[in-house]
């Protein structure tokens, strides 16, 4: 039985009077790829931002690798790597400089150099890695950011819409990378409204709607349960 990397218990997140996440609970096992699926505004990004230490918990409890999110956020930041949706990078740096800038937050120079090398390999941008990020296409920027996410060997990678806005080829390559790193031991929590993507990537998923988790299980199990051909159909049946 694998240990849990994430334990979310009755998490509530409010923005003033608006409840964005309403008493959700789920667990993600170590090395697992777990997906949060739902339409825009369902509460996926808010949940990921809470788990990434960007937002404070209103109510409930979150443990990441045994650390309490409310009390040990500094410790959690050493274990995680967060890739926000539409994330950018510093335009005036080259791809390599950006990777070094990030790597140096984690450890000494020798280890940072190893991280940068790994980041360069993952990004696979050839000579463009030494060009200013300002000159990168959207796909190249996303590859660089995926390189940044995985180069630090995070225990947990939190990916918000990892392939959003990418063309078919770039999206496919990034999905392959995610699969590869999950296989190497990194736990992955991702959000997507692309149901086919989560069907391909995730071992387990939770369907989220209006701030609440409405269904959870493996993609295959859910398809069987709702007698559906794909997750999109499952989702439609669940929320109807």
């Amino acid at each position, binding site marked *: 039985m694998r240990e849990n990397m994430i334990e979310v218990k009755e998490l509530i997140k409010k*923005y*003033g009077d608006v409840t964005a996440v309403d008493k959700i609970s789920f667990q993600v096992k170590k090395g697992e790829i777990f997906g949060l699926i739902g339409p825009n505004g369902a509460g996926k990004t808010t949940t990921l931002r809470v788990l990434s*230490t*960007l*937002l404070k918990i209103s109510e409930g409890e979150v443990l990441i690798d045994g650390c309490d999110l409310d009390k040990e956020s500094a410790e959690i*930041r050493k274990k995680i790597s967060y890739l926000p949706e539409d994330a*950018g990078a*510093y*335009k005036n740096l080259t791809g390599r400089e950006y990777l070094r800038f990030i790597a140096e937050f*984690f450890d000494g120079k020798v280890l940072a150099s190893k991280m940068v090398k790994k980041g360069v390999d993952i990004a696979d941008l050839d000579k463009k890695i030494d060009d200013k990020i300002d000159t990168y296409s959207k796909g190249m920027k996303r590859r660089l950011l995926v390189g940044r996410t995985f180069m630090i060997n995070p225990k947990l990678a939190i990916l918000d819409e990892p392939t959003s806005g990418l063309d078919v080829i770039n999206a496919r390559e990034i999905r392959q990378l995610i699969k590869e790193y999950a296989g190497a031991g990194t736990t992955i929590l991702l959000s997507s409204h692309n149901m086919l993507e989560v069907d391909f990537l995730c071992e387990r998923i939770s369907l989220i709607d209006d701030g609440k988790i409405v269904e959870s299980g493996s993609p295959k199990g859910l398809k069987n349960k709702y007698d559906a051909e794909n997750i999109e159909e499952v989702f439609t049946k669940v929320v109807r």
Partner: protein
Amino acid sequence: MRSKGLLNITRKEIKELLTPSTIVPVLVIALFFASMGNIMGGFQEEVEEKPVIGIVNEDSGEHSKTVMSVLEEKSEMVYNGTDRELGSKYVEEKGGTALLIIPENFSNKIDDGETGYIMVRWFMKGMGVMDTVSSGVVEGLIEEINREVSATLIERETHLPSSHLQRPILKEESTIIQERELEDISPSILGGLMSSQSIMIPIITMMLIMMAGGTIISSMGMEKEDKTLETLLTLPIKRSSIVVGKLVGAAVVGLIMALIYMLGFGFYMQTLEVSDMHLADYGLALSLSDYILVGISLFTALLAGLALSLLLGTFAKNYKSAQTLLFPVTALALIPMFVFMFTDIGNLPTVLQGVMYAIPFSHPIIAMRGLMFDNYTIVFGGILYSTIFSIVMIALVTKIFDSDKLVTGSMSKKGGLIDKLSR
């Protein structure tokens, strides 16, 4: 159809362009110019008003009577007697410009072909342009007296030298400023000498605050626009380190930019220096330790400006809104520069004094002037205030960095105004 389309696009453009962020700066600038107009109006009134003076007449001759008649007609005389010290006291108490002393034998000397000296004891209230206006008016009166006496001498058809006939009277002068009496110098010359030294500090302060403040606010705007801030906040680094790192980075960039500007300005100022007179001749030059204190005052003001800019920068939604949010900092840097160009802090109404003391960027300017007259209390007080201001601002910024606000934007009613301005 075409005109309908044109109307539609024009309406859209106006709606896009006419936002609080574009209107408010223009309104504030308009108000600023209106208040500047009031100050200039006061300046004009002071030139037109009769100057307040005192007179000690120790001569009973014809020419002293001419002097008296001109002064009685064209000035407001708050003392007319024979006691020099009492006269000084009266003039100072009434906020007057000068005490004029007509010495014994003034008229006889002029009739004998010797220069008649009027002794002028000037009372200078500050180092701004406004503070030397009334002395200029009195100097004009002395010129008029010269012309009157000259005309009297010419009418008499005496055989005195023409140079004496043209200019029978000169003045012997001293200037009292901040309880110090400086011999052989008039307020206008002293004001000119002081401004050449003290103008640098207001300009350096303004440049530094605007450059460094602009850098840090833009940096926050770009972090949000480029969506790099979220990544930064999830890295294993203390939020306070991010705040301090941003402050130090902006300070270095601001210093470099200000230095480049100041080099150019320094060359410009050199070309304007024509006088052989120096403040050191009057004991008003600053020592090395004074310059160090000015430097410390400038540094704490810069720190306060950066911390305030960073606080405003946290409300920026993108690069454009960051530029709008820089406006209050720019205004706060410009106001002391303009106000102190006209007058000193002590000559302002109490409310305005409070406002000036509350703006941290006033303190390097106040320090520079205070140090010329060994007023260390005002210098150390300013440094302490700016330091406390910076600490409070940094604590507020760190608190915002530690909260949801930086990621979600302001949700509170308090943040509403800044939110609207940044749109």
